[in-house]
């Protein structure tokens, strides 16, 4: 339950990665070169951050000629945004078990 969140938190905890991801969400697909122009870090650094975002499932890459285009995969964020829903589901399931237990305690 907490592992998926941990991986996403870890990935987005870095401000440069978070900025890259937010830009892709806001502005749509972009090349590494375009992202580097405004990232304030070198192209290899941007590529490294993009690779980490990709392994977390947060971005997707597309090769076209010599360029690699990146786009955001915002659906990957669901585990973070759904923390409350996840915890609610967790407790509902536990209450189901508690209900069974209370029945058994009668016997």
């Amino acid at each position, binding site marked *: 339950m907490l592992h998926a969140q941990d991986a996403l938190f870890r990935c987005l905890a870095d401000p440069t990665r*978070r900025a890259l991801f937010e830009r892709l969400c806001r502005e749509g697909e972009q090349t590494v070169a375009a992202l580097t122009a405004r990232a304030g870090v070198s192209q290899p650094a941007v590529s490294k951050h993009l690779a980490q975002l990709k392994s977390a499932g947060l971005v997707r890459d597309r090769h076209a000629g010599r360029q690699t285009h990146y786009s955001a995969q915002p659906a990957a964020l669901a585990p973070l945004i759904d923390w409350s829903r996840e915890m609610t589901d967790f407790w509902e399931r536990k209450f189901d078990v508690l209900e069974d237990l209370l029945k058994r305690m009668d016997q």
Partner: protein
Amino acid sequence: MTDQAETLTVTVERDFPHPPEKVWRALTQPHLIAEWLMPNDFSAEVGHQFQLKGDWGGTLDCEVLEVDPYETLSYRWDFPNENPDFDLRSIVTFTLTPTASGTNLRMEQAGFRPDQPRAFGGAKYGWQQNFDKLEAVLAKAG
């Protein structure tokens, strides 16, 4: 950013056809807690520190905060992590209310993260604010 925005609260409520005394036993006796919640070394004494062992392999650090027999049980429910951004701290409170047919059990978990995570480069940004930002971005992204 307000304190309100920093806190995430989850509430689950259910009516059980059993008296509060019985529900209370299921909430406070370690072998019964183990049956419905998690393996533990719980004891119903304020200040008692215990652990809940999750089936995902993690361990929750807990401390009893309030024991009001048959009415209220509250404990700290922490999932510690050396990285402050992942460090979950929360408080779980069970409230038992007698009903005509048994007991209404209400569980409220109020969770929050430290308000100044280092990784966000200063005191201005907390996780909730980032959630808000990301959610706004996502809403726009459709």
